[in-house]
């Protein structure tokens, strides 16, 4: 009975959480539909959540592109397929690692920042103060962060794609003596414009996950500084899990195993 009780509670909590996220999304997008947008705050959030994540995204993408190139070049050169290194790096970067790695990095940085900021606003009664002034939290706080994430994550993903391919190309030239022309030619054969668009579509879904989970976790914070810490940690963990799961589902739907 105890196990059944725990399963029941966990199920209720799951649906409460999922329902909460859906309601938050619906409230926020409702204000977007009515064009009740705080433009200046959205631009501010683009800077805070997006631009300030640029350096860490570029750094992780650069080294990821380089390591893919290093590993694939080793094998490819050994078996005489050096010309395929460009394909391997570009294919992986644009379709999978670019969107996903960028999202994971941004979830760790910007998603946590959203949860921590909103959480500290909850425990210092700032959220209650907004509600008491008749201001809608979904419009005032959540929508600018959601929009900023929807704009900035695809942009960051483009930068991540470019820098990881660039890093891969450099390592391929230095380590396996594969010329940039050969690398680019191979890359062009591996992916098309459609792949880039699908990769960016993934980043839009990831942006929704990061912003909404961060906001929901923050707004659910209870119990002072410790509660804010728990919410922030939860935001990163839940976002990353959802990013991995949705990445698989999206890859299956968008690329269908091809």
């Amino acid at each position, binding site marked *: 009975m105890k196990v059944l009780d725990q399963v029941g509670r966990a199920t209720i909590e799951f649906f409460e959480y999922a329902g909460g996220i859906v309601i938050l999304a619906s409230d926020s997008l409702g204000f977007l539909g009515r064009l009740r947008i705080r433009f200046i705050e959205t631009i501010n959030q683009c800077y805070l959540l997006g631009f300030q994540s640029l350096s860490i995204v570029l750094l992780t993408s650069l080294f990821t592109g380089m390591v893919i190139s290093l590993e694939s070049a080793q094998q490819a050169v050994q078996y005489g397929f050096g010309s395929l290194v460009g394909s391997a790096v570009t294919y992986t970067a644009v379709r999978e690692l670019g969107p996903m790695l960028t999202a994971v990095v941004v979830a760790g940085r910007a998603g946590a920042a959203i949860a921590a900021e909103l959480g500290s606003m909850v425990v210092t*009664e700032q959220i*209650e*103060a907004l*509600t*008491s*002034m*008749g*201001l*809608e939290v979904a419009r005032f706080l959540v929508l600018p962060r959601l929009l900023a994430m929807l704009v900035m994550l695809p942009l960051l993903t483009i930068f991540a794609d470019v820098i990881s391919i660039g890093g891969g190309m450099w390592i391929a030239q230095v380590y396996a003596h594969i010329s940039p022309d050969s690398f680019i030619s191979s890359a062009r054969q591996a992916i098309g414009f459609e792949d880039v668009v699908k990769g960016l579509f993934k980043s839009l879904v990831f942006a929704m996950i990061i912003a909404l989970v961060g906001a929901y976790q923050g707004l659910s914070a209870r119990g002072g500084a410790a509660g804010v810490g728990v919410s922030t940690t939860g935001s990163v963990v839940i976002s990353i899990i959802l990013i991995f799961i949705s990445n698989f589902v999206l890859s299956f739907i968008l690329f269908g195993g091809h």
Partner: protein
Amino acid sequence: MSDIIARLDDVTLAYGDRVVLKNCTLDIVEGAITCIIGLSGAGKSTIVRLLDGLRKPEVGHVYIRNIDICHISETQLNEVRRSISLSFQFAALLDSLTVGENVALPLREHTRDPDAQIRQIVEDALDSVGLAHTYDNMPSELSGGMLKRAGFARAIVTKPDLILYDEPTTGLDPIVTHLITDTIIHLRQKLGGTAVVISHDLQSIYMMADYVAMLFEGAIIGYGTVDEIKRSMNPIVQQFIAGSEVGPIPI
């Protein structure tokens, strides 16, 4: 209820298993300062949150100008809230905005007044609470007493009919407590309107209150003018205002 601006009607509310208010009824007289006293954790702050629609009772009704705010939509509630302001215990200013921007926020969001006019109204509001020089300061640069007064400025800037002060003097030294009390009295004289003040500070209450309500174990057990409360025959009220450890209140 012609001279009653707000009313808690037989309200019961619990946080989890802990019943905070039980069949609590309280009338707030229009144009008066009503102070609510009671032990720590008695549910006084819950009352102001009920009056502002931030909490909903499990049983009972909360009326603002005869509108039952427990059974209206969030949009309608936001309309009602425009005639109410809540000044929080720790001011609850948005720490990402300057003091001036905080005070201007309700005007920027709810009116189409030009910037220059809003700036003038905000400067007047800050001047009313003795903070004219703090427009461009961040909240983190103000002392506790200044923060509370900045919170007052934000509360009065829309000229509400009902201002709710949640523990305005708690944690302040006697001089600042006196200053805050004077500010509340001055604001009521200048702007009119109705005020509900949650406080433990009896000296402040005696200075400002038109009516005093004592909350104990979830219900109002004493209500009247300051003199009536001082003369109350209720032993709980007497023990509380005497600040005595001896009496029916369990310590």
